[in-house]
């Protein structure tokens, strides 16, 4: 979990360089934030490739609109808002295409590291415990995927990215009370979902 304390934006120098048209300064920001943004997008969408696409689009959009960024919030927060919006749009698109038809307990969602490690894991019983943990993680992701976007986003921002309530409220443009109640709902639904998973509790 990352700490987000309200301090002056450490990216402000790079941002002002970007506003002057410094592409290298923007590259620095891309390298710095891409991982976190990818994680947010991935937890929202549940698909690695789609998440990568969303992150690309988000950075391109951020660069295009950097002059409109008023620096009232931190750059990372602003960027996160873009990723969030694009992720939600992508989820809608995928739903329309019938690509993303809810969570299935029988077909665990594959992540990239899962694809790489699965085969050797089967041959080594010594890491069986790790594998079980991995499976639970997949199922947790599956449960998260099954959440509605409005609950998922607060869960991702609060429990995974550790944003404070007021920042989440600003990002999603909803009152803090709503953030809290949605988080409660999200956790409750997720808990119900995890109860079905053997060995989760």
């Amino acid at each position, binding site marked *: 979990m990352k700490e987000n304390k309200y301090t002056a934006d450490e990216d402000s120098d790079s941002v002002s360089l970007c506003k002057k048209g410094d592409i290298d300064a923007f590259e620095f920001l891309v390298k710095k934030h891409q991982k976190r943004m990818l994680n947010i997008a991935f937890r929202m969408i549940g698909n690695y490739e789609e998440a*990568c696409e969303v992150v690309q689009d988000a950075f391109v959009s951020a*660069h295009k609109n950097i002059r409109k960024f008023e620096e009232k919030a931190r750059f990372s927060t602003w960027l996160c808002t873009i990723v969030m919006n694009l992720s939600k749009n992508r989820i809608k698109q995928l739903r329309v295409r019938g690509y993303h038809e809810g969570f299935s307990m029988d077909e665990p969602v594959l992540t990239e*590291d899962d694809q790489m490690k699965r085969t050797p894991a089967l041959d080594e019983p010594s890491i069986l415990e790790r594998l079980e943990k991995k499976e639970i993680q997949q199922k*947790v992701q599956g449960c998260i995927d099954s959440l509605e976007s409005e609950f998922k986003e607060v869960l991702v921002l609060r429990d995974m990215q550790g944003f404070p309530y007021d920042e989440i409220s600003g990002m999603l443009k909803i009152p803090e009370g709503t953030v809290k109640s949605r988080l409660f709902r999200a956790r409750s639904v*997720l808990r119900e979902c995890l109860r079905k998973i053997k060995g989760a509790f």
Partner: protein
Amino acid sequence: MQCNNIQEKLSAYIDGDISSEERMLIDEHLKSCQQCNETLAEVTKTTEYVRNLGDIEPPAWLTQKIMTKIRSEAGKEKSIWQKLFYPLHIKLPVEAAVAVLLAVTTIYIFKTMQPEIKLAKAPVEEMTPRMPLKETKSTDKDLMSRKVDIARGKVPQESQHQTAYPETAQPFVQKEKAMPSGGAVAKDESQQKSLSPAPALRALSEMKKESLYLTVHVQDIKKARKDIVKVVIQLDGKTTKTESLADKDVLTIELDSERFDELIEKLKIIGVVEEKERTLDGRKGNREITIEIMKESKQTQ
């Protein structure tokens, strides 16, 4: 406190987002309630699962791909600026094309309208030269149109002439306007068929505006006409047109200008000759003469 109420607050409880009074109440409840303790454990575990999902690593190419996109976007933006800064690149050819189109359209419209203008002007313009020419043979349409062209060409000269000699030009114009030319044209066409277009053309070119306009007052119009035709033949001239109107006959003849006086002398024998118009340049060659044959009584009336 009810279990339901407690469970609703457990989420906030684990976040520490709760007042100290509420925390105390929940702590008190949890000491005695097994169900709520289980719920708390599950809520805590759920949150832990979510928090411990772990980070995924971005692909190695991600930064490069993002930057490639951004650089190409920046390139596109630049070209848009260039277009805005150099509007002439687009505008100049467009303007040129519009100018050419406009010119072509204007010419086309002018050309399509021209025949109408010709038609509108023709009667007025035709009249003035026809007077001296006096309905030269117009056997075919081609000739007719040539005649019109010549007539048109003559208009400026005619007007110059009129300003120079207003007292001479004015009367015959008025006279012509008074004549019912429409019917006459239709009539003479049938009479002129025997004449070939060649001499007519020559005559046209030779005669120009110089002409003689005579009125002969006679007793018997038909007889006088026959006599005049004979006289013309005697003088080596020829009758190019014969018009029979209600109260007069009009002859158009071609005659050598040197024999004009001879003709007038002969005509005086036939009737009373009145020279209405004489515009001659004194040059030799065939000229057109218009002879009006009228009843003597009409003159007196």
